[in-house]
């Protein structure tokens, strides 16, 4: 089983009481609390940690993108991928992912991912996501069109990568008369495509049909299995066999020299389970964004909100793994056996987890945990 290192690049250096005054940390919390001086240092630090994860032996470095939120100030997954393409040597660069529906220029997206793939020597894993509603607000992109735009943007990117230019594209949402990108990916026919899932059965079925690697984020094992079933249903429709390398899972994980230290560090993940997801449903799922099926599934999948769970419950339920390296390895083996996955994505830094703690966790993972995954 392959392990991936992931940091959301948070900007949690403000008084929590200030954030609590607003309906949500996303969209509503004023950026007057953003500090360029702190962010300048943070970016260097977070990029150093990615470099360390590469050197420690992580199979991949996961990068994501959000907007208008202190929970994630990585505002350009492709820019970060471009940087890591130069500063790292071996790990895959898992962009998970580019938010397709809010893009107005899929051709440029295809070019940017190709450029990162070229600079990295063919290490890009290209994830495509629909984004949470916050991103639709950020881009002022009509949520009613979200799924249609996701699929059409995807189709155009794939065509850029696989069909010789110049060609014309006249779709429902995208219109280009002269498509001829002079930047194509190194990997052929194109970088592997990954798709995350939290609630939408349609996305799981679609990913299965397309043969993409599918990764549920922070759901229970039960819900993950259900989503994998949808995935298998789609794969079966297309006559595909599902192998473990097509299935992944994301959890939060940190390790330390002692269990007590690990548990202390793991508390930083609680921030991303509640406070950063707090807000009106309209922010996260604006009207039209979710299908009826997805809404029903979301209600079931999140019947117990993560924000309502105690730290101990989150640890107990494998949303957070925080322990000594040997125990962490055991937990990962357990997750692997429960879900039959080939990729485990670790959100490995959060909130105010400091640099030293993060670096020690990366180092210990490299020494003891990653080698223990080799046979899985």
């Amino acid at each position, binding site marked *: 089983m392959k392990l991936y290192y992931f940091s959301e690049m948070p900007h949690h250096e403000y008084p929590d009481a200030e954030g609590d005054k607003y309906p949500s940390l996303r969209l509503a919390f004023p950026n007057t609390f953003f500090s360029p001086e702190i962010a300048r240092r943070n970016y260097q630090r977070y990029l150093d940690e990615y470099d360390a994860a590469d050197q420690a032996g992580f199979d991949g470095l996961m990068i994501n993108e959000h907007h208008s939120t202190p929970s994630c100030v990585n505002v350009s997954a492709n820019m970060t991928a471009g940087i890591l393409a130069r500063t790292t040597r071996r790990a895959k660069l898992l962009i998970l992912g580019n938010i397709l529906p809010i893009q107005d220029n899929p051709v440029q997206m295809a070019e940017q991912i190709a450029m990162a793939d070229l600079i990295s020597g063919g290490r890009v894993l290209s994830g495509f996501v629909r984004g949470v509603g916050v991103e639709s607000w950020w881009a002022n992109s009509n949520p009613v069109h979200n799924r249609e735009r996701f699929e059409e943007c995807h189709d155009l990117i794939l065509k850029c990568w696989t069909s010789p230019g110049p060609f014309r594209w006249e779709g429902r949402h995208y219109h280009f008369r002269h498509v001829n990108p002079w930047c194509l990916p190194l990997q052929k026919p194109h970088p592997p495509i990954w798709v995350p899932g939290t609630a939408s059965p349609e996305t799981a079925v679609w990913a299965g049909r397309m043969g993409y690697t599918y990764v549920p984020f922070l759901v229970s094992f039960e819900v993950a299995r259900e989503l994998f079933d949808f995935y298998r249903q789609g794969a079966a429709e297309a006559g595909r066999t599902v192998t473990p390398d097509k299935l992944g899972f994301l959890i939060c994980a940190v390790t330390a020299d002692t269990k007590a230290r690990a548990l202390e560090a793991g508390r930083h993940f609680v921030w991303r389970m509640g406070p950063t997801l707090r807000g009106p449903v*309209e922010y996260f799922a*604006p009207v039209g964004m979710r299908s009826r099926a997805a809404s029903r599934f979301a209600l079931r999948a999140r019947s117990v909100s993560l924000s309502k769970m105690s730290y101990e419950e989150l640890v107990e339920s494998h949303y957070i793994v925080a322990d000594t390296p040997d125990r962490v390895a055991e937990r990962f083996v357990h997750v692997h056996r429960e879900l039959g996955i080939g990729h485990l994505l670790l959100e490995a830094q959060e909130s105010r987890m400091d640099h030293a703690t993060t670096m020690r966790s990366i180092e210990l993972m490299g020494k003891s945990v990653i080698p223990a995954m080799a046979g899985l």
Partner: protein
Amino acid sequence: MQTGALGERPDAAQHLVQLVALRAQAHEVGLELIDARHPVPEILHLVGDRQELPVQVVHVIILSVSWLPVGTVYGAHPLGADNVCYARPVTPREETIAVGPTRVQVLIGGQGDPLLVLHGAGGNRGWLRWMAKVAERHTVYAPTHPGFGRSDAADWMEGIDDLARFYLWFLDVMNLDRVHLLGHSIGGWTAAEMATMCPRAIDRLVLVAPTGLRPERGEILDIFFYPPDELFRHTVLDPATIPERETLFGRPPTPEEAEIALRNRETTARLTWKPYMFNPRLPHFLPRVTAPTLVVWGREDGIVPVECGEQYRRLLPHATLAVLERCGHLPLIERPDEFAALVTDFLGSPSA
């Protein structure tokens, strides 16, 4: 008066009478009676005292049938009995009208010059109190927009200008050469667009708190950004003053109604997302409108700033602006009687 309808459907009329009486009883709603003005020589069953007596119906409007909200019943008894109500033939009928391949539900009721009524983002709320009053002098056509209620979807539509073209087509289908046109909120925006596209088709125009123009001051509230209860507080100044509040908001929605409400919001988003709730080209076309226009606004409108009313008045060649004090974004239901009187007077006044 459409006296024929009762003659053709006596059972239905009787059913309505009983239904209303039972509901009035169940909801402890008093039956409000008004003066008779339009004798209708029909024999009906007397319901109030549960005797079957042949009487002459004078004038009753029922605002409630199975698919409409329970509402006030207006009626009068020739003998002055105050516990009697009657069905009358102007109870609106619902028709399904195909405009090209797209079928929409339309409420049709009343008599007189045709008046097309275009609802707002909240959807078609049925045969409302103000409509019943206006329908005494006009034949009201109140369609449910494509993608709203139980009308067909039209997912190909991109904006309110598409809806405007759709309703010009609708007029063709209905053989209505020239109509009075009344629209509320996004329905008002639609009406304004129609009047710029085909001025000849519009006799008189009533715009009620229409969106469509970018406010020179303030902003149109982002209705998609707020939870429903918060949005409602912005929409209505004081729910307690709404005569039909029990009917419209008195109980939680059924699953079907909740689904319709969601569908209404989705279609509104589809049509108005960007630029949000206005067409930057509309002000350049408004001078083309020839119809005498009444613009109605609630002074305390929390959705579309009342200043937009002044912008419409200025841009439209023959417009007057009526601002209702102590009223929010829904003058039609917040002040139904005053609103109906404004509309009736405006539509009935001699041509300028």
